[in-house]
C-alpha cells in the first residue's frame, strides 16, 4: 500500500523536553512551571503521591490534555496542539482500554486500520506484533477472555505497532498481582532497551521506579522535587520529602553548632549532637540543616552502653519490630523525630534481640550521613498523609 510509509514515524530523537509546563484545572494548579529534559532512549519513571501532577504531565505529553502554558518538545519539535498520532507517542492506559468489541488481532491492528492500510497487510503486521509479545495464539479471542497480564501485553502490542519514539505508560503494573507485576517489570525493561525508544512511566510504587528507571523524577504538589538517577534519588535525596517518599531514609534536623574544615556539628531539638561532613553544609552557625541516614546503615543497641556526649548516637524506645526475612525492621521512638527506622540484618538482630518498650541507642557513622540541600520544611509528614 502507498500508505505503508505513513505508518513509520520519523526515526528521530525521542528526547522529551518540558519548558515551563503549567496546567491549571479551574483554580487548582495541577502542574506548576515544570522544566525537565528526559534523554532519548531512556527509561524515565515519574513518581509521587496521587494528585502530584505526574499523570497530568504524561497526558499532556501524550496530547490528551492541553497545557495552560509552557511548551513540550519531542525531539526538536514543539508538539503542543498536535494530535497524539503526529507526536510519535503511544500511550498505554492504566485500564489498558482494549476495545471490548474487537478481537485481539483487530485491537492491535486498529492503528493500521485508521491509517487505511489494506486488510491483508495490517493483519500480517498485527500477527508479527502479537508474536513479539507471545500472544499470537490468542489473536481471535476477545479482550474479556484474557487474563490481566495478557491484556497488558495486548495493550503494549497495540501501542508499539504505531512505531513510537516515546512510549507513555500510565501506572501500567498497578492492576496486576505481585507475581505478574515483577515479571512484567522485567519485560518492560528489556523491551525498552531492545527497542531503544524513550519510555515515560508513571507510578506510585518506589521499588518499581528504582528497579526500572534510568531517570527517576520525584514529584510533589505539581512540582519536581528531584530528578536524577535511581541511585541519586535513593542514596542522596535532595529534600526531606524525597528522602521520606523513597522510604529508605531517616531524616534528622539540627542547628549548626560549629563548623570546621572537615566536619560540622549539628544540635537537634532534643539536644543530641550530630557530626556531618562539612563540605555540603552551606548553612552558617545557628541555621538549620537536615540530613538523612539510610535505614540499613543504623546500629541499634540496648541503652546503657552510651557515654555522655557521644556523637551520632541518640536514645530512643522501641516502638515495633517487623521480621522481613533477611532483615528486621525496627521502629524507634525518638524525641522530636516523627519516624526513625533501622533495618538490622537478621543475624545481628537475633544475636541481641530487642522488643517493643526496650530502651535503645541508635548510632551510625558520620561519613554515612547525607546532607540535604534544603532544611526539612516540616510540612510534609508521611507522603501518604498518614
Amino acid at each position, binding site marked *: 500500500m502507498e500508505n505503508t510509509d505513513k505508518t513509520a514515524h520519523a526515526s528521530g530523537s525521542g528526547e522529551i523536553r518540558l519548558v515551563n509546563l503549567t496546567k491549571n484545572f479551574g483554580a487548582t494548579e495541577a502542574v506548576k512551571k515544570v522544566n525537565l529534559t528526559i534523554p532519548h532512549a531512556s527509561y524515565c519513571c515519574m513518581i509521587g503521591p496521587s494528585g502530584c501532577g505526574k499523570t497530568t504531565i504524561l497526558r499532556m505529553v*501524550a*496530547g*490528551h490534555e492541553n497545557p495552560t502554558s509552557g511548551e513540550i518538545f519531542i525531539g526538536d519539535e514543539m508538539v503542543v496542539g498536535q*494530535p*497524539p*498520532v503526529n507526536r510519535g*507517542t*503511544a*500511550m498505554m*492506559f*492504566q*485500564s489498558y*482500554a482494549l*476495545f*471490548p*468489541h*474487537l*478481537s485481539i488481532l483487530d485491537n492491535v491492528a*486498529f*492503528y493500521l*486500520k*485508521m*491509517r487505511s492500510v489494506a486488510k491483508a497487510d495490517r493483519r500480517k503486521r498485527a500477527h508479527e506484533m502479537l508474536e513479539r509479545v507471545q500472544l499470537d495464539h490468542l489473536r*481471535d*479471542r*476477545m479482550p*474479556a*477472555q484474557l487474563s490481566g497480564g495478557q491484556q497488558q501485553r495486548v495493550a503494549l502490542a*497495540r*501501542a508499539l505497532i*504505531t512505531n513510537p519514539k516515546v512510549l507513555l505508560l500510565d501506572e501500567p503494573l498497578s492492576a496486576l498481582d505481585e507475581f505478574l507485576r515483577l515479571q512484567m517489570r522485567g519485560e518492560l525493561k528489556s523491551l525498552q532497551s531492545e527497542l531503544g525508544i524513550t519510555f515515560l512511566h508513571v507510578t506510585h510504587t518506589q521499588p518499581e521506579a528504582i528497579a526500572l528507571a534510568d531517570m527517576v523524577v520525584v514529584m510533589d504538589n505539581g512540582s519536581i522535587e528531584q530528578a536524577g538517577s535511581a541511585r541519586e534519588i535513593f542514596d542522596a535525596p535532595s529534600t526531606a520529602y524525597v528522602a521520606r517518599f523513597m522510604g529508605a531514609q531517616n531524616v534528622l534536623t539540627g542547628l549548626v553548632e560549629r563548623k570546621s574544615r572537615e566536619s560540622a556539628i549539628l544540635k537537634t531539638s532534643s539536644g543530641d549532637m550530630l557530626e556531618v561532613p562539612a563540605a555540603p553544609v552551606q548553612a552558617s552557625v545557628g541555621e538549620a540543616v537536615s540530613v538523612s541516614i539510610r535505614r540499613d546503615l543504623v546500629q541499634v543497641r540496648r541503652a546503657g552502653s552510651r557515654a555522655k556526649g557521644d556523637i551520632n548516637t541518640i536514645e530512643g524506645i522501641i516502638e515495633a519490630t517487623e521480621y522481613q526475612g533477611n532483615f528486621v525492621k525496627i521502629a524507634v521512638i525518638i524525641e522530636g523525630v516523627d519516624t526513625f527506622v533501622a533495618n538490622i540484618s537478621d543475624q545481628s538482630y537475633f544475636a541481641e534481640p530487642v522488643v517493643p518498650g526496650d530502651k535503645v541507642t541508635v548510632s551510625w557513622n558520620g561519613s554515612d550521613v547525607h546532607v540535604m540541600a534544603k532544611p526539612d520544611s516540616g510540612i510534609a509528614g508521611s507522603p501518604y498523609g498518614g
Partner: protein
Amino acid sequence: MISDRRPWTFYVLALLFTVFVLFLYGPMLSVLVLAFQGPSGSLSFPLQNSSLMWFDEVFNPTRVGDVPGAFWRSFPLAIMVMLLTILISVTAGFGFRRRFRGSSILFYTSIASLIIPGLVLSIGILVTARFLGVSANWLTTGLGAHLTWTLPFGLLIMFAILGRLDPSFEEAAFDLGASRWQVVKEVVIPIVFPGMIAVALFGFTLSYDEFPRSWLTIGTLNTLPLEIWTMTTNVTSPALYALGAMTTGISFMVIGVGLGSIYFIQRKRAGS
C-alpha cells in the same frame, strides 16, 4: 447457627411473589385463552369450542372497528418515534457528557415531561396546535406527544450507558490515530450499541402502547390503543381478546428481537 432449613420468612416472601406473578400474568393469560373462544362463547370463561374466528373478525371487520387501519398508523408511528428517540437521545447523551453552563437545568427541563400527567399534556398540545393553526394529526401532534414520553426515557438510559463508558476507550482510539468521527464510528457506537437497542425498545413499546398522550393529539384517525379503547365501549365480542392477544404478541416480538440482538452481540464479544 447455620441450619439447612429455610426460615419462615422464605415462605412468606415466596407466597408474596407467587401472588405477584399471578396478578401480573393471570390477566394476560385470561385474554390469551379467551381469544380462542368459540362462536357460542361469551366474553368470560369458560372457553367453549375453541376457534380462530375472532382473529378473522379482527382482520375482516364486520362489527368491530378499523383495526388494520389503526395498526398501520400505530406501527409506523412507533417506528418513527423509535428512530427519532435513538437519534435524539444518543446525540443528547453525548452532548451531556461534557458539563456545560446550564447543563443540569437543561437536563431537568427535558425529563420534566415524565411527571406531567399525560392527559394534561395531551390537552396542552391540542390547545397549542389549535392556537398555531395546526390541525391535530397522528403524524404531527401525535408524533410530538409521543416524543415527550419516550425522549426522557431514552435520555436517562443513555446517561446510564455513557456514564459507564470509560473515556480511555476514546482516548486510546484517538491515540491510535482515529479522527473524531472514527472514534465515534469505530469505538463508541459499537461499545454502546446494546444500550442503543434498549433505547429503541423503549421508544417503540412506549409509543405503540401510548394512550393518554395520544388521546387528543392524533386527530380523527385512531391509533391502536385508542381503537381498542373505543371497541371496549361498543364491541362485546371476544374479537377484543383476539386483538389484545395479537397486539401483545407484537410487543413481545419487538422486545424479543431487541433482547435477542443484545444477547447475540454480548455473546459475540465474549467470543464463545
